[in-house]
């Protein structure tokens, strides 16, 4: 029967052998996971931002493709007052919001939309927030909710923003995904219809692609925005995200032409990809850090000795060889060396099993103590295989008598639970958003960010004072000093074990033209075309 069956299979497979030529102008992107929603204001992960902010939305200012430099977006120009506290934006005219089956705009983009967007991010009592309660973790991690004290419409195409304290990176922050501009008209309609929550499922933006449909865990479909305000940036007819959590499946699909661009290749496949004549594999030096957070709000991780012991038991080099296949450099600091203010003088504690055991003993930790080690379910630029990394750390810790249980959840759930502090230790990481040191130290380690991106829940007064001061200083040399000192404190207190800064590779088929790797780890399809 085996023989017969094989014949049958062969026969039908050959009979059905079909070409994989794709419709002209349809680009398929093999993405790594389902977004939790399409409202960039409330999201934190690159998976979410790729699917919403990068495809369907615009910001007042934006990063030039492939660069960390900002350029005008929905604001044509802006003025900053002498005290660095007031910003006045002149808005672009003739920008249309998307027309879809669920919304037909009656007016063009104007100051009301900007005011709505930022009121929503900063005012808990804003009517829309009452109707659709949500956290805005990014805005609050960056202290925007407390620092942005006024947003005023001066005239329909002028908006003024006032800050409480100087924020050296304010404009950069406005270019980040979470600051994407929503349509006030659409939101008002939703509010009236009692469907405010739809803002997360039926997005309306001004960006190059228009939302068409989303099938959870399967695909997201977008149509080109033929009215996009930056003419010539939309060269595709359709954009499809094929949600494919498995890196090897993404690669197989890329090889077979079932998708054109893929997210996050498995390091082990890179060599084969680079020699494949059908593929291009551009790369970009690291602007990310992968690390392990110790939840200091839980026992016994509140004890420095415990964190030190766990830290020095980890074999970082082996991880870089096995998980990254060498395409990464060991990380010492929270930020990568290419970030200005990186403190070159710091060193990792040398790996030392005996000393780690002694430290644990001193801290009164019994052998065989069980802890949880969280590993994210998706690939990230800073960590291509968290499960594998977790198994290695588990093995390293077993040698000092710590039994780690590996825990994982679906990505959205992982972040949600981690923000609630349910973990003991967790693997996570960061890709820089705006090129400012505060984006590493403030967002991930500041006291404001506990309950947000500060997964170590580490709030150190000495450290926090330095970064708060750094944020409100405009003199760069001064800031460098403050941040270098902050990194020294970080290294002394070990809220994380920093693991690696990895090189980002973006495999795509040769017919894809004009794709630029974002230094911020986002995937956008502005100006991309198919040959």
């Amino acid at each position, binding site marked *: 029967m085996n023989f017969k069956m094989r014949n049958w299979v062969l026969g039908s497979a050959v009979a059905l052998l079909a070409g994989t030529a794709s419709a002209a102008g349809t680009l398929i992107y093999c993405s790594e996971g389902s977004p939790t929603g399409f409202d960039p204001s409330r999201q934190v992960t690159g998976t979410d931002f790729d699917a919403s902010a990068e495809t369907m939305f615009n910001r007042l200012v934006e990063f030039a493709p492939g660069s960390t430099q900002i350029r005008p977006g929905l604001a044509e120009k802006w003025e900053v007052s002498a005290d660095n506290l007031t910003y006045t934006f002149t808005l672009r005219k003739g920008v249309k919001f998307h027309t879809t089956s669920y919304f037909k705009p009656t007016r063009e983009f104007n100051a009301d939309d900007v005011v709505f967007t930022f009121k929503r991010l900063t005012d808990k009592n804003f009517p829309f927030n009452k109707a659709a309660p949500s956290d805005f973790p990014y805005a609050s991690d960056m202290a925007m909710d407390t620092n942005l004290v006024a947003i005023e419409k001066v005239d329909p195409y002028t908006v003024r923003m006032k800050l409480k304290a100087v924020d050296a990176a304010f404009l950069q922050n406005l270019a980040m995904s979470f600051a994407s501009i929503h349509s006030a008209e659409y939101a008002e309609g939703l509010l009236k219809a009692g469907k405010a929550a739809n803002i997360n499922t039926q997005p309306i933006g001004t960006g190059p692609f228009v939302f068409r449909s989303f099938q959870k865990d399967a695909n997201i479909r977008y149509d080109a925005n033929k009215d996009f305000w930056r003419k010539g940036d939309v060269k595709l007819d359709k954009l499809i995200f094929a949600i494919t959590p*498995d*890196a*090897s*499946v993404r*690669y*197989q699909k890329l090889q077979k032409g079932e998708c054109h661009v893929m997210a996050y290749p*498995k390091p*082990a*496949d890179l060599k*084969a990809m680079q020699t494949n004549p059908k593929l291009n594999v551009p790369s970009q030096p690291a602007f990310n850090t992968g690390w392990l957070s110790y939840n200091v709000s839980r026992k016994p991780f509140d004890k420095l000795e415990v964190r030190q012991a766990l830290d020095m038991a980890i*074999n970082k080099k*082996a991880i870089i*060889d*096995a998980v990254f296949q060498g395409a990464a450099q060991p990380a010492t600091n929270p930020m990568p060396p290419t970030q200005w203010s990186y403190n070159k003088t710091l060193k990792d504690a040398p790996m030392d099993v005996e000393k780690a055991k002694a430290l644990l003993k001193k801290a009164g930790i019994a052998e065989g103590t069980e802890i949880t080690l969280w590993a994210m379910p998706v690939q990230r630029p800073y960590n291509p295989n968290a*499960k*594998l990394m977790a*198994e*290695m750390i*588990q*093995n390293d810790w*077993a040698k000092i008598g710590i039994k780690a*249980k*590996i825990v*994982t959840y679906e990505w959205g759930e992982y972040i949600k639970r981690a923000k609630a502090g349910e973990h003991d230790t967790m693997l996570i990481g960061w890709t820089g958003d705006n090129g400012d040191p505060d984006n590493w130290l403030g967002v991930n380690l500041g006291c404001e960010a506990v309950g947000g991106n500060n997964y170590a829940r580490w709030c150190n007064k000495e450290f926090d004072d330095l970064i708060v001061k750094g944020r409100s200083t405009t003199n760069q040399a001064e800031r460098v000093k403050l941040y270098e000192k902050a990194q020294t404190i970080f290294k002394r207190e070990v809220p994380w074990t920093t693991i690696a800064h990895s090189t980002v590779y973006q495999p795509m088929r040769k017919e894809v033209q004009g794709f630029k790797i974002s230094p911020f780890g986002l995937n956008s399809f502005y100006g991309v075309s198919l040959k």
Partner: protein
Amino acid sequence: MSTPSNLTAADQAANAAALSYPSPLKEFWQSFSANRGALIALIFFAALVLAAILAGVLAPHSPTEQYREHLLTPPAWVQGGSLQFLLGTDELGRDILSRLMHGARLSLMIGVVSVVLSMLPGIVLGLLAAFYPTWLGNGIMRAMDIMLALPSLLLAVAVVAVLGPGLVNTMLAIAIVSLPSYVRLARASAMTELNKDYVVASQLAGAGKLRLMFNTVLPNCMAPLIVQGTLGFSSAILDAAALGFLGLGAQPPLPEWGTMLASARDYIDSAWWVVTMPGLTILFTVIALNLLGDGLRDALDPKLKKLA
């Protein structure tokens, strides 16, 4: 093997008629060993049990030791392989052969524990249902119908979803989902026995309900239950592996066979041995157990043969 040991009046009469009648055990063995497939399966299974018990001694390496210089080494007979790792290593440099041997322990343990955990309560419930066929029996059988309304793997998935993933919960879930088959079988065979003369006789002789249940009726129902146990063993191994594969079963670094396959999808095009070895082990084990079950059934209860 607890073959019918209660020589009842009827049996004794038969024995008297044929004095040279072979002992039940011998008869069983003769009939079993005539089945070549079952015999080979028995040998394979014995070897597996041995490997599992002696894994600590026989396995060339520790199942969790990560040889980080030897990631994804191919099996010894393939170019690039080494004799140090006969079946190759996985993505963390762990020896696959050693993991499979230690994994045999886990799989056999899962099989034994879940079969025992479902067979014992299953027998008790089945006998109760047979002895008290009115409301208690009906209640029990209705409850079993409910459990049978869900495909076993789905029910196991639901149970694990509630209890959380892990080895113990896997065994528990499998035991729960296989309960109905034992209850039904025990009840059905007990019902047939209940009408037989020897039961009526011992009832008249004043045997209590408990004695009647466990000493008189049960031994005569054991044959189909043993067969069911063997088959349950194989499906327990399959279900546990499926749960492990879905990430809901035994958790790393435990070398459970299904768990070993959970990340194998990643190595389809680069390291076939990571995919093939654990799967073949599961397949052979399950085939052996099914053959063994068939052989046992034929040998223990020729009546069931035609139901094959």
